[in-house]
């Protein structure tokens, strides 16, 4: 303890449990961030039941379902990537992660298709056509674009993080004995999945 020569980075030791705990606490903030928007959704759903159902009828349920499956699959491959690395299978792990990124790209593309379809129908933020809709529907679309937008943003950030981890694994900085980074990115990715599990039925299925 009294070794002063060890400069300040000397404090920095690897503690996977602390890392996990800290990252979970961070995930709580993400949960509550989305949770707050869900509160807004729930209250307005209660106030404008009919308008919200009307809004749901304009959603493309097939694209929504496909997107759900894509995201669930990416979650699986991410979990498998971590499991592979834990067993020391570096190449397999990288391959799984590459597949995860492909899935996330697919998710974003489908999302883009959905949004642009709405855009062409004149349903978009700042579009004058929106003012002609009934009050509750305007709120529905406001929430739809905000919440799915936030979620898509998280997908993008998650994909970038996975790319980062891939590089770290390839360079050997993250390996079977030092898993915190990939573990935590995995947790983040599953959280993104978790949020979608609730977004999907609320925006597409309550008919």
């Amino acid at each position: 303890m009294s070794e002063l020569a060890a400069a300040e980075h000397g404090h920095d030791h690897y503690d996977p449990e602390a890392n996990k705990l800290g990252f979970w606490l961070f995930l709580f903030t993400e949960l509550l961030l989305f949770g707050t928007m869900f509160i807004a959704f729930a209250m307005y759903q209660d106030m404008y039941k009919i308008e919200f159902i009307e809004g749901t009828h304009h959603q493309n349920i097939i694209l929504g379902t496909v997107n759900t499956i894509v995201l669930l699959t990416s979650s699986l491959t991410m979990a498998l990537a971590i499991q592979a690395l834990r067993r020391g299978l570096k190449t397999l792990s990288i391959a799984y992660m590459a597949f995860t990124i492909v899935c996330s790209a697919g998710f974003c593309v489908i999302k883009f298709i959905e949004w642009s379809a709405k855009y062409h129908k004149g349903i978009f933020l700042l579009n004058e056509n929106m003012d002609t809709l009934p009050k509750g529907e305007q709120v529905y679309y406001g929430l739809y674009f905000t919440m799915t937008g936030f979620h898509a943003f998280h997908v993008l950030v998650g994909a970038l993080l996975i790319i980062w981890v891939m590089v770290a694994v390839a360079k050997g900085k993250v390996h079977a004995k030092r898993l915190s980074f990939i573990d935590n990115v995995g947790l983040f990715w599953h959280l993104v999945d978790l949020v979608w599990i609730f977004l999907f039925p609320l925006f597409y299925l309550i008919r």
Partner: protein
Amino acid sequence: MSEDKSEHIMPVIGYVGIWLCLIFLTGVTVAVSFVDMQNLTLFTALFVATIKSTLVLLYFMHLRHDQPIIFYMILACLGSYAVFVILTYSDYLYR
């Protein structure tokens, strides 16, 4: 400080099984949404979503094999969130 416990490694088949469950539940919830059930629609949709998220939490996010403290922390977090929802709703219910 870094007591790296030999952690439980779930086999690949286990993960795939969970994934199949999730896909199946997605199918169920989509199918059910075409049935007109009035007030139950919201409830079933949320119920299925809760099961799905529990699966993700327990297996993909390893909660089942982690230290219990994380589990309790999540309970605390979700508990406070539930309270936020209920108390906010108390306003909208009576307004």
